[in-house]
């Protein structure tokens, strides 16, 4: 066997805060990385995954105390002097960070940034730097590299920036790449491009990659080996197929069960109870024990932390009872789609040709220089008791649509009818009365709760504003609401910062329910939550809908979550709905090329099926909405686009016999009679 590139032995990292407190973030981690492989470190927030990677290259702040051994190409990293570390970072390790918009220095040309480390390390002559930058940009497949190299980061799109960062990481021909959540800030079609690029660059250079992520789909798509971290330790590690096929740690098994799937029949999610542990308060014994069903309170689990043991199947598991984990039995309890024929009912909410345009003003005189057509003709009906999802990538106008329905953004054109009555042109009082029937749940529970109010006051606030606090039963009613969302009324006097993300989102939901609305607009309600918490909140939403007969407008970019929760789905692209239909029709037989690409780009947490699946790799990114392409907005990226698409906007039609309504001249099943084309399409089998 070849020597490992990186070998980590018993790595421990403590952070010293204040004078006395010592927080152990990484507590004894061992792993190796061999040439030409991708090791995924997967874990939730607080699991120590990022700190592990930073410690491996000596990049931790000064208040971190690192022990153990990290050998990179045979050189010990821990305790190495600054000079060694600098040389190592310049030549042997390349970094790709999460957010490409903050990794790049905004005032330095991209090409210069990509090579400055090399120049500084004396590996590259200054006069060759530009040529090398162009070469690097070409390697990461940035179009027109000669021009791009002299541009500044703000002239790059998000995906291109991340490509540049990858190029920068590879500039020194490093023997190891560490990528920390490299695609979390990117849209799903761009994520697919970037992951593909990383994998291909690895093939070409042979330099292994450590990829840190929380997304099991990304793991399944890219990893060769996986290390699952929990509470500062690796709890399970092994080859990707084996981990996903037969997880041998209860945490891995529970995690895989708790995530919504894109490719399986819908079922009720099986969430992991409780909260992820934080390094500051680890339980004695196994850190996962309080949430574990296999351990189930056994004394051995509560007293002794299990070491990583060989399970005989190429995987290692840190569980006393790894052989007792039940095989993954996906309960076949499909959540039925709403079966009522919608046409018979009157819609609760009807959006008619909604347009929201923003003006961009420029110059001293503040003249209107351009319009951003954030929403450009959206029509949608929501029938009582159903969940309709708006899906799309960032900038497609889904959130703007939601906020406009809520009356937070004025509409430019079209109409919004609630219960048959138009909401446009309502007086303040009329708007206020209508708003009691529809409420909004925000994406980020960290910013949607007023930090200076107690959670009781936060939930009661809408009632006070409408002057009905005493009428509905005061504190007793608030306690009922708390109960309904699974919070204890004992938490009344606490402030938002004392709650975890999932609990905060429950407070946000309780607040939205306070006025007894009939429609909830859910704007990415689980996107900011840890994977194991998402399932809890999704189940809660599911229960609430059934108990209270709520109608949901669900706004999301995560296709798996949408499949789980929706009855009908509308796919948006650049301000318009491009395809709309029942959930199963959209997922099983999409006919718009964008829907098809979106579905094929979404990573699925199943490595075997993932490799079998054919993928459409879309080129480019979502265009600037202030300067949309002529004709069909999707045409520049579309693999079916014809001359007509570039000049004429396709109308939204619901063809008879077709399961979905589509805005496309060439709609059709993916492998059917639709005109296949020579325009940018790259089909490839898995990776």
């Amino acid at each position: 066997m070849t020597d490992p590139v990186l070998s980590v032995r018993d790595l421990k990292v403590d952070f010293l805060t204040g004078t006395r407190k010592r927080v152990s973030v990484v507590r004894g981690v061992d792993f190796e990385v061999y040439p030409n492989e991708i090791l995924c470190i997967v874990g939730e927030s607080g699991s120590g995954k990022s700190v592990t990677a930073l410690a491996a290259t000596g990049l931790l702040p000064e208040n971190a105390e690192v022990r153990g051994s990290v050998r990179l190409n045979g050189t010990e990293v821990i305790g190495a002097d600054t000079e060694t570390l600098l040389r190592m970072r310049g030549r042997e390790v390349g970094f790709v960070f999460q957010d490409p918009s903050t990794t790049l220095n905004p005032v330095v040309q991209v090409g210069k940034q990509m090579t400055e480390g090399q120049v500084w390390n004396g590996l590259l002559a200054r006069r060759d730097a530009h040529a090398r930058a162009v070469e690097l940009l070409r390697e990461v497949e940035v179009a027109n590299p000669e021009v791009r190299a002299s541009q500044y980061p703000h002239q790059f799109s998000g995906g291109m920036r991340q490509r540049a960062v990858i190029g920068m990481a590879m500039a020194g021909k490093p023997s190891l790449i560490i990528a920390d959540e490299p695609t979390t800030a990117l849209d799903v079609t761009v994520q697919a491009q970037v992951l593909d690029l990383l994998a291909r660059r690895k093939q070409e250079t042979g330099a292994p990659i450590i990829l840190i992520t929380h997304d099991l789909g990304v793991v399944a798509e890219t990893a060769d080996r996986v290390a699952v971290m929990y509470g500062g330790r690796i709890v399970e590690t092994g080859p990707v197929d084996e981990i996903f096929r037969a997880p041998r740690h209860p945490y891995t098994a529970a995690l895989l069960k708790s995530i919504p799937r894109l490719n399986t029949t819908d079922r009720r999610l099986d969430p992991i109870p409780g909260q992820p542990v934080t390094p500051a308060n680890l339980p004695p014994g196994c850190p996962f024990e309080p949430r574990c069903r296999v351990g189930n309170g056994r004394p051995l689990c509560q007293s002794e932390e299990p070491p990583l043991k060989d399970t005989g199947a190429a995987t290692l598991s840190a569980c006393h009872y790894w052989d007792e984990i039940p095989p993954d039995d996906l309960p076949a309890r499909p959540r039925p789609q709403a079966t009522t024929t919608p046409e018979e009912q009157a819609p609760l909410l009807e959006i008619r040709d909604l347009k929201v345009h923003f003006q961009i003003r420029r110059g001293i005189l503040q003249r209107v220089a351009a319009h951003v057509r954030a929403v450009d003709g959206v029509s949608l009906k929501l029938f009582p008791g159903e969940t309709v999802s708006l899906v799309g990538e960032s900038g497609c106008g889904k959130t703007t649509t939601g906020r406009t329905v809520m009356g937070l953004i004025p509409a430019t054109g079209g109409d919004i009818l609630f219960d048959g009555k138009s909401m446009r042109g309502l007086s303040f009082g009329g708007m206020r009365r209508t708003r009691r029937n529809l409420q909004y749940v925000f994406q980020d529970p960290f910013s949607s709760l007023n930090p200076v109010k107690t959670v009781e006051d936060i939930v009661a606030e809408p009632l006070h504003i409408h002057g009905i606090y005493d009428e509905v039963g005061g504190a007793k009613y608030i306690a009922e609401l708390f109960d309904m969302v699974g919070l204890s009324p004992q938490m009344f006097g606490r402030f938002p910062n004392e709650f975890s993300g999932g609990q905060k989102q429950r407070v946000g939901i309780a607040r939205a329910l306070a006025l007894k609305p009939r429609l909830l607009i859910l704007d990415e309600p689980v996107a900011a939550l840890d994977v194991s918490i998402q399932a809890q909140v999704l189940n809660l939403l599911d229960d609430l809908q059934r108990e209270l007969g709520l109608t949901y407008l669900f706004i999301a970019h995560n296709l798996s979550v949408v499949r789980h929760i929706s009855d009908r789905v509308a796919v948006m692209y650049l301000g318009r709905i491009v395809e709309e239909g029942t959930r199963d029709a959209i997922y099983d037989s999409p006919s718009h090329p964008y829907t098809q690409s979106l579905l094929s780009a979404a990573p699925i947490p199943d490595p075997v099926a993932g490799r079998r699946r054919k993928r459409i790799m879309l080129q480019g990114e979502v265009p600037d909405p202030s300067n949309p392409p002529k004709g069909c907005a999707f045409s520049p990226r579309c693999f079916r686009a014809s001359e007509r698409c570039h000049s004429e906007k396709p109308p939204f039609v619901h063809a008879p016999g077709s399961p979905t309504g589509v805005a496309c001249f060439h709609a059709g099943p993916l492998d059917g009679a639709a005109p296949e084309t020579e325009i940018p399409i790259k089909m490839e089998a898995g990776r």
Partner: protein
Amino acid sequence: MNSLRFMLRTIRGLMARPGPALSLLYLTVVVLAAALAEVLPIDPFSQDFVMMLEGPSAAHWFGADELGRDILARVIYGARTSLVTAAGAVAIAGAIGIPMGLVAGFFGGWRDAVLMRIVDVMMALPAILFAMALIAVFGRSQGAALLAVGLTGVPGFARIVRAQVLTLRRRDFVVAVEAFGGTSGYNMFRTILPNSWSQILVQVVVLSSVAILLEAALAFLGVGVPPPTPSWGEMLRTGKSYLYEAPYYAVLPGIALTLTILSFDTIGRGLARILENPRDVAAAGGPT
């Protein structure tokens, strides 16, 4: 309850650093002395002509002034003048500046433009000149000095609050209030304002020190509070005339003034550091 907790936490944070802790201690003494001046066995007005411009003695620990009045007594009563001016000025500045900043930041557009140009004009006027002009109109009185100092503090409040509103305005919890039907007024005063107290507090402390200094400066120029009300600035002004006969005359009021300003500024700096880095409060006692 929350605000009480916040205050306790803030004070604990201040006490954890030597500079602010000493300053807080000193200011407490000054405030107590000013508040309880009547209880003390001192009299700032009785004239003891025998002791005129005499140095420290058992009867007058810090000597007597040109009319034989006890200097220590006058410094203690002078603290009252300073503190009343500071409190009044802060109240006036806050009452005008905070709503100005809220409205300008919350609504933007023409309201913002108009209000902020007014603020710009106020900033452009030299404070002392502006105050003297006001006093020229209203005559010398405690009220005029207070109003003058207060008005010069308006721009500070307006700008701080406006900046705070701009950072909070688009936050989800403000939009949320809008979503369930809260009025703009509710949002400004019940949502944004409570989230701005820490910034406002820093400004209160800063303005207090500016106000005390300005009041002293006006008195020094002879346009402050009318005699015989004791004032540190006034004492410095008279003390200046007797520099050769009674060099110790101006020392005590000078020290009192300097220490007060220094204390306010030290506390202000301490507050700013604590509030911009809340973890400092949590880790109070540890090195930062």
